[in-house]
């Protein structure tokens, strides 16, 4: 993948991420905060961006979204192949850890 392609992909990803975030925040702010892992202030800023601003921000050489979890356990649980597909215990375990991490981060932000 050459630089040109990478920049194009980044712009595409940024654009769809920002538009999705805006739609989510506008339709249900509280659930969007949980899903996106954003603070109230950032959410308000994102929701307030005009289309022109979104396009401009998207055309950056950096991704506007980043990996949310820096916890090895979360990634290994999410990536693990569960023995019984009827009940994905590892998936639930990861979900509990993820919701907990969010909560502590929100507490720090508040």
């Amino acid at each position, binding site marked *: 993948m050459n630089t040109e392609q990478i920049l194009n992909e980044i712009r595409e990803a940024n654009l769809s991420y920002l538009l999705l975030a805006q739609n989510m925040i506008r339709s249900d702010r509280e659930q969007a905060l949980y899903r996106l892992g954003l603070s109230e202030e950032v959410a308000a800023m994102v929701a307030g961006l005009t289309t022109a601003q979104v396009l401009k921000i998207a055309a950056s050489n950096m991704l506007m979204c980043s990996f949310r979890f820096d916890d090895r356990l979360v990634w290994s649980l999410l990536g693990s192949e569960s023995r019984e597909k*009827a009940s994905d215990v590892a998936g*639930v375990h990861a979900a509990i850890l993820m919701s907990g991490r969010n909560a502590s981060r929100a507490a720090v932000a*508040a």
Partner: protein
Amino acid sequence: MAKRGRSIVDEGREIQRAIELIKLGARLQVLETEIHLSRERLLRLYKEIQGKSPPKGMLPFSTDWFMTWQPNIHSSLFMGIYQYLDKSSELEEIDVITKAYQLYLEQAGACGMETVLSLTRAWRLVKFFDAGMLTTTGCKQCGGHFVVHSYDLTDSYVCGLCHIPSRAGKTVASRAGLAAAAIGAS
């Protein structure tokens, strides 16, 4: 319970709330506590949406249910979501419960688990937290937050997912399902 001289807009919002709760499976007792509408109107709403009379009888009242293996996982998941929403927003408690419950249903569905925690149970869970009877504690192995009794000793708490008990998840219902599948296969 209904106050006099409330605006129609307020009433409309209460009805909207009640509809959402009934759709999610709330029992009448939940509605009576949380929604400022007369009992008759709640009953009519319930029948209109569910197409049947609300179940009678008392609500489940034991905190022990939340400690058994599978319910504990589900309630810990719900509580994680609830506490996140509660901290990051300024909604009224009942709205936080509704939104958190919707997210819980999504997550349980994504993990392919049946929904063990009903909305009424989830509501009770929050009330038990408010009353200080239940709380969450961090698992010493994975660091996740799990529902425990407030006065449990939790210095060396290890959650049911890091240390899965041998008979975990082997309920009567799941065994019946397996047996049915075996018969179907043979």
